[in-house]
């Protein structure tokens, strides 16, 4: 700051020169320099920060940022079939209304008294997830579904005292990378390949990989490729060696698919982004972990768990942290993993979403997506040169489309689709070279029949060019 040139800003009340001077006087300081007296000269910045000139007025700031955002095109303006871990759904206006409330947006770490509403809203979120998952324990959200998976297998490791984790080969490769980075100090990761014809795991192979040192079998159901394995068989295989069966699940699928608890999952995890969060270029993710109310498992959670309890007034409900001593907040490195600011507002929002949808809404939503997926699969298979890779398997929401028959790489096809205002499916050719030139196409209730038909017509058009 230029000496003698005061900078008064709406966000900094006491930057008013007279106030600043009066406060300095009150504390007996000649200038703010005094407060920094402990910082040696060698550690001080020698020049002002070299950053871009600011837009001091809100009007110009808005114009600047709006100009940047106008350089983006987005899925509300284009037709998008991208998925692979982040999904376009209709976000109910009430979800936006609630997570936009000043109170929720700016609360943080208050007590169950001053922040009673925050505790209740998060407890209710956990409870509704529990209803969807048919499990008794659900945590306050972690960062995203990947973190949830990484923590879930660490929980299994602690619970079993074993190091080996067998991971299904058709999970998101990024998730495997993240789980490995996160867990490898204490866990060894082994991948179980999937059958390229069906897109499903081979039970015999999985069984072979499981052994008495195995802490967990980790599977996503539906898989990253949209296929749906036989959970009960996998659960039996895991349990046969004393390993936990950990399932990553798309919560939207649970309107039609069985909750993993019903086919034997011990820990269930996933991402709540589809439950009322805008995609936000990946900013809408949030992770959940769930289990039965087995104290030995509960004590492995690193996350906050909120419980409902009576208060000193009969009939009144209060809330609080369950088994706080598990956490790093309480025990530092001797707690489980760590806990910090993650994605609580998305938890509240997912609660709003589930309350709006109710049982009927979740059932209709999932059933409709399954129908659209099947319809799209049939339609796309009819486009010349295009093949649905695992056409013989059931899919939810996503399936792999192979373009080898067109002689064109996915990149070229997607570029051509983009020119027609369509975001084609996620290009799998780098991460899954065995699948050839393939892309992952995703569908949801935002897509009308007309949209799907338009996709196919556009594909035909660009492939004919």
């Amino acid at each position, binding site marked *: *700051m230029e000496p003698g040139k005061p900078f008064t800003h709406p*966000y900094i009340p006491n930057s008013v020169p007279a106030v600043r001077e009066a406060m300095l006087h009150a504390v007996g*300081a000649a200038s703010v320099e005094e*407060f920094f007296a402990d910082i040696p000269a060698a550690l001080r910045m020698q020049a002002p920060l070299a*950053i871009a000139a*600011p837009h001091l007025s809100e009007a110009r700031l808005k114009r600047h940022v709006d100009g940047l*955002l106008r*350089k983006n*095109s*987005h*899925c509300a303006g284009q037709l998008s079939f991208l998925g692979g871990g982040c999904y376009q759904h209709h976000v109910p206006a009430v979800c936006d209304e*609630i997570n936009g409330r000043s109170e*929720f947006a700016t*609360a*943080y*770490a*208050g007590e169950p008294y*001053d922040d*009673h*509403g925050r505790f*209740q809203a998060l407890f*209710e979120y956990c*409870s*509704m997830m529990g*209803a969807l998952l048919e499990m008794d324990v659900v945590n306050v959200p972690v960062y*995203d579904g990947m973190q949830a998976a990484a923590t879930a297998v660490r929980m299994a490791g602690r619970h079993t005292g074993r190091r080996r984790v067998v991971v299904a080969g058709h999970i998101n490769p990024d*998730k495997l990378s*993240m789980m490995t980075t*996160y867990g490898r*100090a204490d866990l060894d990761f082994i991948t179980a390949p999937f059958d390229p014809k069906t897109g499903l795991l081979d039970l015999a192979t999985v069984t072979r990989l499981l052994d008495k040192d195995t802490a967990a079998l980790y599977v996503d159901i539906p898989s990253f490729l949209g296929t749906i394995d036989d959970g009960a068989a996998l659960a039996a295989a895991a349990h046969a060696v004393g390993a936990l069966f950990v399932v990553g699940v798309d919560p939207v699928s649970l309107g039609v*698919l*069985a909750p993993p608890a019903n086919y034997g999952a011990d820990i269930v995890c996933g991402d709540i982004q589809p439950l009322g969060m805008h995609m936000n*270029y*990946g*900013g809408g993710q949030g992770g959940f972990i769930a289990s039965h109310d087995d104290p030995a498992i509960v004590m492995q959670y690193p996350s906050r768990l909120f*419980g409902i309890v009576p*208060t000193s*007034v009969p009939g009144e*409900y*209060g809330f609080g*942290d*369950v*088994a*706080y001593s598990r956490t790093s907040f309480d025990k530092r490195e*001797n*707690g489980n993993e760590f806990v910090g600011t993650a*994605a609580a507002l998305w938890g509240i929002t997912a609660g*709003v979403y589930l*309350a709006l*949808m*109710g*049982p009927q*809404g979740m059932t209709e939503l999932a059933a409709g997506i399954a*129908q*659209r997926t099947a319809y799209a699969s049939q339609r796309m298979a009819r486009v010349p040169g295009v093949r649905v890779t695992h056409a013989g398997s*059931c899919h939810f929401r996503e399936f792999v489309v192979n373009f080898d028959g067109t002689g064109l790489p996915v990149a070229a096809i*997607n570029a051509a689709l983009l020119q027609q205002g369509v*975001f084609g499916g*996620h290009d799998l050719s780098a991460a899954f070279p065995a699948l050839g030139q393939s892309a992952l196409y995703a569908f949801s*209730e935002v897509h009308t029949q007309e949209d799907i038909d338009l996709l196919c017509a556009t594909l035909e058009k660009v492939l004919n060019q």
Partner: protein
Amino acid sequence: WDEPVIFELSQPGERGILVPEVEPDIVRAAGQPLAGLPAAMLRQRPPALPEMSQNRVLRHYLRLSQETLGADLNVDVGQGTCTMKYNPKINDQLARQPGMSELHPRQPDSTVQGMLEVIAKLEGVLCEVSGMDAVSLQPRGGSQAIFANMAMVRAWHESRGDAAQRDEVITTIFSHPSDAACAKLAGYKVITLYPDANGYPDLAALKAAVSPRTAALVITNPEDTGIFNSRIREFVDVVHAAGGLCVYDQANANGLLGIARAREAGFDLCHFNLHKTFATPHACGGPAVGAVCCTAALAPFLPGPLVRHTDGRYHLVDGAAQSIGKISSFTGTASIMLRAYAWIMNLGADGLRTVSEIAVLNNNYMMHELLKIDGMAAPYAPGKRRIEQVRYSWQGLTEATGVTSEEIGLRAADFGVHYWTSHHPYVVPEPATIEPTESYSRADLDEFIGVMRHIAGEAHSDPDLVKTAPHNCPVHRVQGEMLDDPERWSITWRAYQRKLGERGLA
């Protein structure tokens, strides 16, 4: 409001929102799309969610929001270490537009040039603020950034072949619990230094702890005491001399913008919490962004993807060959990055420096006034100024009246303000951590000081009043012992219903 738990509001048949119809052609073509699955894979009964009209769902959550004390609603200086500052509404408004909210993270780079530009420019600002050479914004919170830093430390030593030997990380008790926890998670043994008599991390203890086994020092400065460690460069040099890396936890950076940086102190890595220093909303505890900053030497280890600017276009590229890999989904919490970018672009260099100057002025004013209250003290470094926060002690008051710091906090809730003691363990007896930031006016600070003075007075005149607080909150004192009893804890409503049936709770 005396708002029931949401399941109690259910009326079978009510709908909160309708789902788009499936066109008859689709229904016909799809048939039973999941009939090929084993029966056990299909849901047998609908989820036991509440059934409510939209109006009732909205009313329920609006009432819960009013029972939540957001920073917007109060003089939120009592959650020390949390850096509760003003989160400008314009930034929320900007981030809630479809050009941000409706972006899919797998969109082609050509369709997200504005977003990538924001990320790249924000990275540039953080380089300048820290003096570091490279930044990743992928972590979704401060603790995840700390873990990323530890994973980079690990990868660095692995790349040099001495990972097996270097299995210890040194931190201090006044650093965030996640510093210790993340080091442990990355596979390290944790050595914790305690403060010396003046409240500084003990240099002699560090020298004793450092060895060829030292992988890194992880340290905050100023620590949660608010006291700046003048000898930080010596700490760094000692560790470097032993071959360790130095990681700076900059959660407490709000008093240092444009004043002092990680570079000048010699650190290899550091991190910032955008929801603290850079004014993004705390959101009940996320979504958030933790920024990882590092020197050029550490840059090859950053998680991917990375934003690159070539030929006038922005691109995402994979992490380098030595990258630690993914640390979270996609590029992180982009909508929070946009808010932080907007905040910085509204303030500029002068503004950021003023933020810190006033945050520190406010803190020293607060300390000056609070120390006039009988029974309150600021342990360590008597007479010294503090940076952005102070860890106080009510030990004197507790000894005189029996009222504890925790009880003062519950009573403070009655006056509509937050109050936080500190992380465990309580190294300072009966601690209280106050951080006024730059966002509050002198009148606001005086109001908070008045509440503290008033409660201290009550502790003397009517201690029971304080000890039975809260009296003026949505709920009364909870029966906390149930929360640690596996037989009775109830983490979901279905668990509560079951245990209520089995054990007649409440």
